[in-house]
């Protein structure tokens, strides 16, 4: 199985890519102008912030950055495309030849990264369609990978890694992420277009792999075609488009000049994966635990960075988990108070969290270690110990019960329980 992706992400700019219309409007067709409506005579003006973010993405994905970038017209007729051409990139895209190292060790090469405008939104009703031009001209970055993804797990790893890098560049990953998947099991390439969201993307890939496998196992051959994903049925269907090379008649966009990238100040990339790996090595903790905490959470990462010398890493991780459970801790000072409290053997519930946050003294809430050990010993009877030898999960109910009762981190309880079993 080989999968290649084309991922489209919206950029967090205040205005559209080629005009000064706001990107924040909600009332349909309220944020439009002659440029994004494709009115005769209107000319595009490049949003330099969009270019800066696109260059930052390309650099974070270790691409070669084009010294000068330029744009082209991609001509096709569709009701959502007001000029009947999309301004995109071809000859001098923002970046080329990059790579993403995923947390599972796989590497996915990036073929190209380009900046382009989004078409309008089509809202389909029963026997008519509506168009919302608020989306027309929104800045998009298209990230095209090489066909390097070889399993569903790798697909998940890649997209998680990519989203994390984008998140730290300030790109809104909560928004719609549109993906085109290219999947080939035995030579013939099937393209699944316009999948919205990550879950759908993985579901579509899973369905498509299963579908193609079945055909191959049955002795048939997969047809090279374009398919679309039907979310409600969780399946892909043929779009019945002719499989010819599409003719877009690209020409240089003559209303835009070329743009020098040398002087652009890049946004510094953050590789959560690499940071988690560093912590795992330095503090002897599980990389995955740290990674889950910081992958999409710049506040968590900042709190770890600021407290890592003064507190034990395990305590810090407990602290972050508590913050994620009870909400914003407010300040770095409050977080340090929380870590102090944990280090002194306290356990935290909602009430204690609020008091620590406000800087008030917490009475009680002290973990009585002796009591916990006694209780664990009682639950760990010989049968449980015997089961544990065959199935390590056999002790989970003990861990769960104690963790819930004493508002403790299950990981800490697990350590205590294992120590008892090991004697």
């Amino acid at each position, binding site marked *: 199985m080989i999968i290649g992706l084309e991922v489209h992400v919206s950029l967090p700019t205040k205005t559209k890519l080629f005009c000064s219309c706001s990107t924040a409007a909600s009332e349909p067709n309220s944020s439009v102008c*002659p440029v994004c*409506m*494709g*009115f*005769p*005579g*209107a*000319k*595009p*003006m*490049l949003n330099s912030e969009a270019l800066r973010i696109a260059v930052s993405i390309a650099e974070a994905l270790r691409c070669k950055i084009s010294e000068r970038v330029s744009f082209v*017209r991609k*001509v096709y*007729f*569709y*009701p959502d495309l*007001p*000029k*009947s*051409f999309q301004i995109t990139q071809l000859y001098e895209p923002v970046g080329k030849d990059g790579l993403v190292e995923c947390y599972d060790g796989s590497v996915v090469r990036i073929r190209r990264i380009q900046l382009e405008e989004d078409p309008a939104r089509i809202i389909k009703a029963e026997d*008519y369609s509506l168009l919302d031009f608020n989306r027309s001209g929104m800045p998009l970055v298209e990230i095209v990978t090489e066909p390097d993804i070889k399993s569903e797990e790798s697909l998940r790893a890649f997209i998680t890694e990519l989203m994390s890098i984008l998140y730290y560049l300030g790109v809104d990953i909560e928004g719609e992420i549109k993906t085109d998947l290219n999947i080939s099991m035995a030579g013939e390439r099937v393209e699944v277009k316009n999948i919205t969201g990550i879950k759908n993307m993985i579901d579509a890939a899973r369905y498509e792999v299963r579908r193609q496998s079945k055909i191959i196992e049955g002795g048939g051959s997969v047809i090279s075609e374009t398919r679309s994903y039907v979310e409600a049925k969780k399946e892909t269907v043929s779009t019945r488009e002719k499989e010819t*090379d599409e*003719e877009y*008649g*690209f*020409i240089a966009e*003559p*209303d*835009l*000049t070329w743009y020098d990238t040398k002087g652009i100040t890049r946004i510094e990339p953050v590789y959560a994966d690499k940071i988690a790996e560093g912590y795992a090595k330095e503090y002897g903790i599980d990389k995955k635990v740290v990674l889950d905490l910081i992958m999409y959470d710049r506040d968590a990462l900042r709190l770890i960075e600021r407290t890592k010398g003064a507190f034990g890493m395990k305590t810090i991780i407990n602290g972050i988990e508590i913050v994620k459970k009870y909400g914003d801790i407010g300040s770095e000072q409050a977080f340090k108070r929380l870590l102090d409290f944990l280090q002194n053997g306290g356990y935290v519930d909602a009430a204690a969290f609020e008091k620590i946050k406000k800087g008030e003294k917490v009475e009680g809430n002290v973990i009585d270690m002796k009591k916990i050990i006694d209780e664990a010993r009682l639950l760990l009877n010989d049968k449980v110990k015997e089961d544990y030898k065959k199935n390590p999960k056999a002790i989970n109910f003990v861990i769960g019960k104690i963790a819930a009762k004493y508002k403790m981190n299950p990981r800490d309880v697990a350590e205590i329980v294992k120590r008892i079993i090991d004697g």
Partner: protein
Amino acid sequence: MSSIEEFYSLEKDKEYYRDLLEELGKVNEKLNAFNNINEGLSSGFPFSAKDNLCVKGVESTASSKMLSGYVPPYNATVVERMLRNKFGFIGKTNMDEFGFGSFGLNSQKIAKNPFDEHYVAGGSSSGAAIATAILKYHVAIAESTGGSIATPAAFCGVVGFTPTYGTISRHGLIDYSNSLDKIGIMARSAKDIRPVFDAVKGPDGYDSTAVNAKLNSNNTKHIFVVDQLIELVDKRIRAYFEALLDKLSSMGYSIEHAKIESTEAAVASYYIIAMAEASTNLARYTGFKYGLKNDNFGESYNEFFTEARKYFGDEAKRRIILGTFVRSASVKEKYYYKALKVREVLSHSMHEILEKGFILLPVMPVLTPKIEDAKKLSPLETYKMDALTIPPNLCGLPHISFPYAYDNGMPLGAQLITSKFNDYALIDFVEEWEEEFKYVFKYNIGAVQ
């Protein structure tokens, strides 16, 4: 004194504009200079805008049926700047549809030559040239892609100035070929062009290609004549042109001969680039959001917009088809990329000569044709008529067309070309020429007794 200064110094009665508009209306019925006239004009020195320039609240169609009823919600920058400088908007001038034509024939109303209605006015800025030739106090904002200012200016006996590409913002210009389109000015004297150019030039926050360049006036006494191009010209014109060169010699100019590379490929290169870009610009006209609307929403989108696109004129359809062809993947290398290369070679070659002096050429290879005769020309024969105006236009070079002789009462125009951003030298030259040569006008609408 410019006629603008003269106009403001004159005593005009209350009825001045009303009388002017009334007379203009009558003449316009005969000559088809204007697509619409601003009946509300009541102050300022009159200026007209070619119908491919957007004027807020005024129907702007680029003479295309496709855009009939289109009223732009904004002013083109050039129009905005004219209004801000207290010029009075008098109307939208007739043109070949979207600028596609050299004779003014590709319009719903054929533009007619003010010296003789049986003759063409030239195109594509036909109406701009006619308006300039019939109105005593007026300047025209026109536009040239491959010669659309110089040609009608020459046939109608007025001065036509096409500045360096990018010196006047194209924001609000209904695009023909964006890398070639240049907004320019027509007037009865270079003296009127200067203040208008001063008012409208310069960078613009709505057009990335509008540059902030220092414009010069480096005058030279050297004039180069390009024999390869002169050879394409009608013998009768050559005789008039020789006389012009003699006259310029007597005025102290040295006449030299030069060769430009790739001139034989210039017309093909121009039409390939212009059509390729035009076919993308015209893709947006789908009878859907503006202009002529197709209400038959029951069709599939392909059928829907195909139906609407029947409203394009023949020349527009021809350019869409050819333009789409030359940029298609299988032949792009052979046509489009080669055309870009020719533009580069030609630009370089012309630049080398222009560093040493001006280039002077006749505007058209033929005497003003009769409308009936021009109609008989094949598209290719018509395209070849642009052989002399294409070199400066393809290279984005500033040039000015001015009347220099009259043949049986019909004016002849020559064009002076200079290097990029030396635009004011052209105005200086024609001002000097006007000391020596008096232009003839058949109409003087708006003259004050």
